[in-house]
């Protein structure tokens, strides 16, 4: 009877496409919105994940997330270096400074100061120039998105002209010359990211007694990282986290202290409800419209179990197609937006989530339809 079920489903192309489109929309909205949500949350810790080399991040114990800078004295660096199990420890400056552009406009930028000697903690991908170019006088490396957008100049026609290598800007009244262009993952605030040396970053920053934001630590080979972080905490009184722990702390801060989860949660929930209503209603209407046909089959001796299997098959088929098209469209959306400011992250867990969502919708719609067919009096076929 499976082929009869499929032909009943696909016999009316318009209705069939209506059900599939309803489920596609439900699946799309259940994947696209969470993908944006996850993309935004991933940006909260993108600076940490971009800084791949260190095993451990050391900071003031009151730091709540990566942008919550509570500077340390430079001497803390040497205390960390003196702890057994530490292969190396490097300073990092991280702070928001105002850059003055050639046209006189100001733009707040995320300035990262790297250890002058090793330049550890630099950008993950260099598009133009070399990280060692930072050793040149007044040299800075800027991320491509910042250059193209917030730091770009406007020509007479109002068209954006990105800064390029050799161009200069002012950071806190100090000259900075662009010596390289990097690709970094966009941060939550999407400020331009400017890399320079630690000593130069200190000269750009307003004069303060403490300017060391983080100490980046590499453990010696074979060292247990949990043990080392515990030891650093004990010996220095500072906070020390593995890279993953620091990402989790940052992520959880944004989850708990911002309205992002609830805002997006409501959006995703509404999408789910609307999608479920459309798809469920369409599928149920389809069953209702075919109720006489089910009645004919029942009168001829088809069992409820067979009819149940037929409806489930129809639900599984439209569900699978709708789900596939929905996640496909979401993936296309993400691909099309990959070079824009839009945040987008599409992990496999999201496929499972939307798959479960579409399955619930289909099963629910099928269940209601099945109840209707189960209770159907076959004598309906004699009513004209």
């Amino acid at each position, binding site marked *: 009877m499976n082929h009869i079920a499929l032909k009943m489903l696909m*016999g009316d192309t318009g209705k069939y496409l209506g059900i599939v489109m309803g489920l596609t929309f439900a699946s799309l909205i259940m994947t696209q919105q969470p993908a944006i949500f996850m993309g935004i949350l991933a940006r909260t810790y993108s600076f940490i994940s971009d800084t791949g080399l260190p095993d451990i991040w050391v900071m003031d114990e009151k730091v709540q997330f990566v942008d919550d800078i509570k500077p340390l004295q430079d001497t803390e660096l040497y205390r960390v270096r003196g702890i057994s199990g530490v292969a190396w420890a490097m300073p990092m400056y991280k702070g928001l400074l105002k850059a003055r552009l050639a046209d006189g406009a100001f733009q707040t930028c995320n300035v990262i100061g790297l250890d002058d000697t090793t330049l550890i903690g630099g950008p993950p991908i260099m598009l133009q120039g070399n990280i060692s170019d930072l050793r040149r006088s007044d040299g800075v490396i800027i991320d491509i998105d910042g250059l193209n957008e917030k730091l770009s100049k406007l020509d007479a026609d109002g068209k954006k002209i990105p800064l390029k290598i050799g161009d200069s800007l002012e950071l806190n009244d100090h000259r900075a010359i662009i010596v390289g262009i990097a690709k970094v993952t966009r941060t939550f605030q999407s400020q331009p990211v400017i890399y320079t040396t630690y000593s130069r970053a200190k000269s750009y920053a307003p004069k303060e007694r403490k300017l060391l934001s983080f100490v980046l630590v590499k453990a010696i080979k074979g060292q247990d990282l949990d043990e080392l972080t515990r030891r650093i905490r004990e010996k220095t009184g500072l906070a020390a986290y593995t890279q993953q722990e620091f990402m989790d702390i940052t992520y959880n801060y944004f989850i708990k202290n911002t309205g992002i989860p609830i805002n997006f949660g409501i959006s995703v929930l509404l999408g789910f409800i609307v999608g479920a209503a459309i798809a469920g209603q369409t599928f149920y209407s389809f069953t209702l419209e075919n109720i*006489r*046909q089910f009645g004919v089959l029942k009168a001829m*001796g*088809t069992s409820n179990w067979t009819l149940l299997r037929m409806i489930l098959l129809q639900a599984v088929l439209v569900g699978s197609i709708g789900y596939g098209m929905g996640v496909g469209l979401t993936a296309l959306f993400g691909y099309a937006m990959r070079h824009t400011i839009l945040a987008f992250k599409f992990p496999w867990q999201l496929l499972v989530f939307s798959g479960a969502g579409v399955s619930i919708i289909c099963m629910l719609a099928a269940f209601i339809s099945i109840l209707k067919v189960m209770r159907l009096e076959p004598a309906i076929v*004699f009513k004209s």
Partner: protein
Amino acid sequence: MVDAVRCEKLVKIYDTGGQKVVALNGIDLTIKLGELMMLVGPSGCGKTTLISVIAGILDQDSGICELFGENVNAMRSKDKLQFRAKNIGFVFQAFNLLPSLNAAENVSIPLIINGVKRAEAERKAIKVLEQVGLGDRWKSFPSQLSGGQQQRVAIARALIHSPRLIVCDEPTSALDHVSGHNVMNLLKEVALHEDRALVIVTHDARIFEFADRIAQMDDGHVVKVTP
């Protein structure tokens, strides 16, 4: 020889929103094998209820309805389904063909319900369609057929599994005079034989001449059986 249908003191009452409507009020009726019995009477007299009970798709409240000596109402639900799938063929007023299946696929349904493989069922369906004069239209969908042709397909569907009883509900009411006569000729020639009975519910006086006997119903009773 056992009767095709034997109804005795058959009662069926519908409860419609607290109001009780007596549809069958002590029906006694016998239909013999090889017989074409017509049930006639005004609307609401209980004809459709009676064939629903006879066909085993509606349970009576009291009385006995035996098909080929078996009390279908007393059967377990699964056995009743199997009995119906094997022994009853249906022809409906509105044809009730599945619009997304072609003629051969529609005709093959009873065989598929009885467990016959699809390819074999469709092969046999084409042969039965040839019997009803539609051998060349087996690929056509219901929407591509005239009313008369659709009813022929429905008749082929009612015959394909060689049931012992065929119940027809107003088989000619949606057809013009010529098509109606053609359908009745077909039913009489192809469907009726000594091991099978036909019960036809109709308002259509033009086809009374095809009946072996006519049961006149009124107000839930069989008031007269002629001849």
